[in-house]
C-alpha cells in the first residue's frame, strides 16, 4: 500500500509540473545541457530551456565568472543554429573570449541601450522572437511585474533568457525559474605545474522553482563542464587502480 501511494504521489507531482509548464524532456535535450549533477536540481532533472534564469553577479569578478558559465550554456543552446542577443547598458563582455566556450562570437548580437528600462523593453521584444537561441540582459533591478512580463513572453516563444543582475541587495521575488550565483574558485593544474588552470567556479543555485537549491563546484574544460568532485574521485579511482596494478 505505501508503495502504491508513493507511485500516486509521484504521478501527481509529475502532473503538477506539467500544468506549471515544465514539459518532460524532449528528445533533443535528452542528453542534457552538460551541467552534470546540477541538472538534477531542476524539476524532471532537466535544465529548463524556454525560461528565464536569474544570475546574481555583484562584482566584476563574479560577472566574468557568470559570463563564462552563460557562455558555456550558450555553446550548447546555439548548437542547433540560431542567434543570440546580448542587451546591456554598459557592456564589458569581450567577444573573442566566447570562442573558448564553443560560441561563434559573430553570432551574438550586442544591443547597447542608454536607459535601464530600455533593457527590459528590448529583452521582452527579443524574447517574443521565436527561434532565437537565447537572450541575455544585464539589468540592475527587476520588479515582480516586469519579470512576469518576460515570463509570459518566453512561455509562447520557448526562448531561454538570462538576466544578469549586478545589484543583489534588491533581489526580491521574481518569476524566474532559478536564481544562480557563480563565484570564481582557485584553479588547479595537475602535477603542480606553474600557471593558471581551467576556470573553476562555485555554482550556487539559491532558488529553484519546484526544484532543490544547492551548491556545486564546476570546472570548464575543453570538453565542456566538469563537476569537480567527480573528477577528483575519478582521479582517486585511477590512482587506486594504478596502485593496485603497481
Amino acid at each position, binding site marked *: 500500500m505505501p508503495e502504491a501511494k508513493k507511485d500516486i504521489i509521484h504521478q501527481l507531482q509529475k502532473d503538477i509540473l506539467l500544468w506549471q509548464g515544465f514539459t518532460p524532456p524532449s528528445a533533443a535535450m535528452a542528453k542534457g545541457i552538460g551541467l552534470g549533477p546540477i541538472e538534477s536540481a531542476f524539476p524532471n532533472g532537466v535544465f529548463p530551456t524556454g525560461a528565464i534564469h536569474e544570475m546574481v553577479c555583484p562584482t566584476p*569578478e563574479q560577472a566574468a565568472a557568470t559570463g563564462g558559465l552563460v557562455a558555456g550554456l550558450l555553446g550548447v543552446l546555439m548548437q542547433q*543554429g540560431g542567434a543570440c542577443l546580448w542587451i546591456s547598458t554598459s557592456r564589458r563582455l569581450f567577444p573573442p573570449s566566447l570562442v573558448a566556450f564553443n560560441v561563434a*562570437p559573430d553570432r551574438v548580437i550586442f544591443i547597447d541601450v542608454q536607459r535601464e528600462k530600455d533593457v527590459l523593453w528590448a529583452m521582452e*521584444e527579443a524574447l517574443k522572437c521565436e527561434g532565437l537561441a537565447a537572450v541575455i540582459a544585464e539589468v540592475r533591478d527587476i520588479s515582480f511585474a516586469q519579470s512576469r512580463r518576460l515570463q509570459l513572453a518566453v512561455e509562447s516563444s520557448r526562448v531561454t533568457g538570462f538576466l544578469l543582475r549586478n545589484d543583489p541587495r534588491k533581489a526580491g521575488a521574481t518569476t524566474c525559474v532559478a536564481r544562480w550565483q557563480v563565484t570564481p574558485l*582557485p584553479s588547479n593544474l595537475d602535477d603542480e605545474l606553474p600557471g593558471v588552470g581551467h576556470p573553476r567556479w562555485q555554482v550556487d543555485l539559491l532558488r529553484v522553482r519546484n526544484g532543490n537549491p544547492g551548491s556545486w563546484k564546476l570546472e570548464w574544460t575543453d570538453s565542456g563542464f566538469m563537476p569537480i568532485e567527480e573528477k577528483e574521485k575519478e582521479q582517486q579511482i585511477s590512482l587506486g587502480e594504478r596502485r593496485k596494478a603497481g
Partner: protein
Amino acid sequence: MMNKRFVSLWFRHLTTDRLTLRQPELKDVPVVFVAPVRNRVVVTGANFLAEAQGITVGMAAADAKAIVPDLKVMDDVPGMEAKLLKALGEWCIRYSPHIAVDLPDGLLLDITGCAHLWGGEPGYLKEIVTRLRSKGYDVRGAIADTVGAAWAIARFGRTKPIIEPGGQANALLSLPPASLRLEPLILERLQKLGFYKISSFIGLNRSALRRRFGDGFLMRLNQALGNEDEPLQLLQPIEPYSERLPCLEPIRTATGIEIAIQTLLEKLCKRLAGEGKGVRIAILKGYRVDGQIIETSIGTNRATHQAGHLFKLFELKISSLEPALGIELFTLDAPKVEDVEVEQEVLWSPESCDLSNNSLAELLDRLANKVGAGNIRRYLPQEHYWPERSIKPAISLKEKPATAWRTGRARPSMLLNRPERIEVTALIPDYPPMLFIYRNKVHQVKKADGPERIEREWWLDEGEHRDYYQVEDENGRRYWLFRSGHYSGDQSKQWFIHGFFA
C-alpha cells in the same frame, strides 16, 4: 501621352506683401524696397500704394522719393525672393507634386492630371489663388499647355486666365513681346522696330527672326507655343518611390494617422513588391494646417516590402508626431530601396533561425528604431593582436568573418573599455607581480601565466608595447594585467588591469 498643363503664379508684390504680413501697420503706407545696383540705388519692389502713385520697379530710389514724399524705404535683403518662393512652393505641394520656383516673382506648377481632384481647372485655379490671397499675397495665376503661355497670361492676360488645350497661340497674339520672357536688349530692339504685339512678328519667316534676334528669342517663342520642351527645375526632385495621401478633413488623432500610414504603406509596398524591391529607408511627412511640416523616418536592416512590418516600425514613431490643428496631407517617400532577395517560404522550424532569418531582421528593425541602429552591433574578427583592435563591427547581418577567430591565447571574458592603473609589487623583471592593489583592495597573486608580449602596431599608433599576464589571486579570482613598456625600477605608472577572466 497625356497633354501637359501648367499653372503659372505671379506674385505681384511678393516682398512688400511679406513685409505687410510681418508689420501690419505698414498696410496703408507706400513702401518700396531698394538695393544698390551699379552705384545707383534702385527700387526692387514696391507695394500697391507706391505703384498707384507712379513708382515702378527699376526706378532710382531718389526719383521715387521725389514723387512720393512720405515713401517708406526699406533695404532689400538679398535672396529674400528665393527664400519666400521656396516656402510658398513647398506650401503649394498640396496641389501638385511638381513645383518649380520661377525667379524673381513666380511659381510654376506642373498640374498634369491634378486639376480634376478639385473639380476641374476653374475650381482648381480659384482655390489656389483665393487661398494665397487670403494669406495676404497679391497673386495672379493662369493655366495653359506650356510654361511660357501660362507665364505670359498670368502677367499680361486681360481676358481669361485659363487657356484651353491647344489655344496658346491665339491667346498670345494680342500680348506684348515682353510676355515671352525675353532679354531687355531684344525687347528694346523689338520696340525700335515697331513690334508692339506678338501677332506682328509671329507670322514672319523663322530664319529672318533668328538672324535679327538670335536663337534665344526663337527658343522662348517656341517654348511658349509648345513647339519646344521646357524642363522645370523642380523644387522637390521627385522621389522614385513616393506616395501621397490628401485628406478631406485634417487628421488629428493617432488612429487617423495609423490609418493614413497603413494606406500609404499598402500602396507603396504593392508597387515595391511588383518590382521586387524593398524599403531600406522610408520618410513620412505630414503637412499641417498651420503650414508646418512634420516628419519621421524609419530604417530597416534588410530591404523589405512587408507592409505589416513597416507599419510596426512606424507605430513606434506615431507618438512623436504632433498633429496640432490637423494634418491635411501625408506623403511617404522611400529614398533608399534595394532589391529584395526572393526566398522560398519555408514552414517554420526553430532550428532554422539563424542570422539570415526574417523574424530576426524584423526584431532588429524594431529595436533599431527605438534604441538607434548604431547601438546594435555584431563583431567580426580582425587580424590584429592588439586587444582593442582584434574585433570590428560587422556592417550587415549577412557579413561573414573574413578570418577565423583566434583560439590560441586565452582572452578575458570581460574587457575594460580603458585599462585602469593599478599599484603592484613586482620584484623580478618579466615576472608577474607578487601582489597588486586594484580599487583599494590588495590581491595576492598565487598563480600566473605570461608574459604575452603584444607589440604596438607602429603603423597605426605610437606608444609602448604591453606585456600581459593572466593572474589568479588567493580567492581564485582571475585578472588580466599588463605592464606597459619594459621593466624599470619605478613601476608606479606602468601597470594596468585590462580585464577579468571567467
